[in-house]
């Protein structure tokens, strides 16, 4: 992004949605400023943050006068502006396939993982509550169903959208980081190609850098 002013990302790096955007910024080598938003203090529902995002979610993103929210929308913008090939927008067929697997990540993998991490981390650590194991079990079944689809797909292609890595793959990394750190990590053992695919992505410099930011946040 050259000599323009740095873009800003608002939110804690440990939020998987924030981390998703950071991975994209690292992939295109953009300079950015991470502005912390303190969720436990309710800063995301305060007037300054609501002015940016209307729904009080993280991340918010600012590039000059442009303010965006919703991590996958921000990610697309960052990748396009950085002339990245992670969206494959030079090909109608490839970009559509990337879109399909990005939607699949959002509605299947992320939804199940969000419920699991909420119960296993957020409820006991930030809300003083107890994990609802029924919810965890229900969502583990949904996660396994998704992993089964991925395993089949990855027997035929190197990555989800084809033999090229794309945003559809990288969008999984933040949640995968928490999965690998959790007691549920062994769920991946039954899906060897998925495990290799995850390990490969976790080895990327951009992903490593963001995982460090997540852990330090």
């Amino acid at each position, binding site marked *: 992004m050259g000599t323009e002013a740095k873009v800003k990302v608002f939110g804690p790096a440990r939020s998987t949605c924030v981390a998703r955007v950071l991975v994209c910024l690292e992939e295109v080598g953009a300079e950015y400023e991470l502005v912390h938003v303190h969720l436990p203090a309710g800063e995301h529902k305060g007037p300054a943050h609501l002015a940016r995002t*209307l*729904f009080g979610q993280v991340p918010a993103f600012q590039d000059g006068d*442009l303010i*965006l*929210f*919703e991590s*996958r*929308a*921000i990610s*697309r*913008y960052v990748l*396009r*502006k950085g002339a990245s090939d992670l969206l494959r927008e030079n090909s*109608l*067929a490839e*970009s*559509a*396939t990337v*879109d*399909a697997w*990005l*939607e*699949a990540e*959002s*509605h*299947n993998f992320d939804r199940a993982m969000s419920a699991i991490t909420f119960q296993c981390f957020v409820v006991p650590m930030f809300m003083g509550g107890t994990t609802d194991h029924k919810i965890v079990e229900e969502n583990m079944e949904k996660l396994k*169903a*998704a992993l089964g*689809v991925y395993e*089949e*797909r990855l027997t035929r292609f190197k990555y989800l959208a084809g033999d090229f890595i794309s945003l559809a793959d990288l969008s999984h990394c933040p949640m995968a980081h928490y999965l690998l750190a959790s007691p549920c990590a062994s769920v991946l053992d039954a899906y060897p190609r998925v495990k290799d695919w995850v390990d490969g992505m976790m080895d990327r410099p951009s992903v490593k850098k963001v995982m460090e930011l997540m852990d330090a946040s």
Partner: protein
Amino acid sequence: SSPVKVFGHATSTNVARVLLCLEEVGAEYELVPVDFLAGEHNTPEHVQRNPFGKIPAFQDGDLVLFESRAIARYILRKYRTPGSPDLLGENGGAEEAAMVDVWTEVEAQQYHPAISPVVFECIIFPVMRGAKTDQKVVDESLERLRLVLGTYEERLSKSRYLAGDSFSFADLNHFPFTFYFMATPYAALLDEYPRVKAWWEDLMARPSVKRVCANMPTKFCF
């Protein structure tokens, strides 16, 4: 070239999303039914098209796609004619396209989770499974929906359409579930948000929407 194929039923919300985009760009298509009751969505043939065994699936020549929003984007990119509107905002520059993406995500991540349980409990589960409406789920969803609609009301006070001054893919994505919501006993909720109501009526007046509506029921017997 032969018409594209959409696998699923015209009454399905996510199929309707795709049909709406086909109608917007005036592309020819063939609707191929998938027999859920016979388990056709779990057959190898269908799973090859939609690995999660859902509808819609889509075929254009050699390309097979799943996920209605991804299919819709592809249709709007490939089949857009000079005369049809730039619903993805991609010719307007990175910022316009980004705003369309933002509000498309908002529909998926905020609006849909609030409104869809009402549609599932009041229409889909009773019709498809003979199930009774879970009023607790409905009430909780309506509470969430009120908050979302309040935010939409604010947005539409500053912007003619969700993503900006022009009608876009973001607005269009709200059609399927809102259509069925208006067939539940809770339709009057929209009257509490006048700008949202006006935006909805504007959407319903589009020729493409009228054509898709014609194949979607508004009265249900259960």
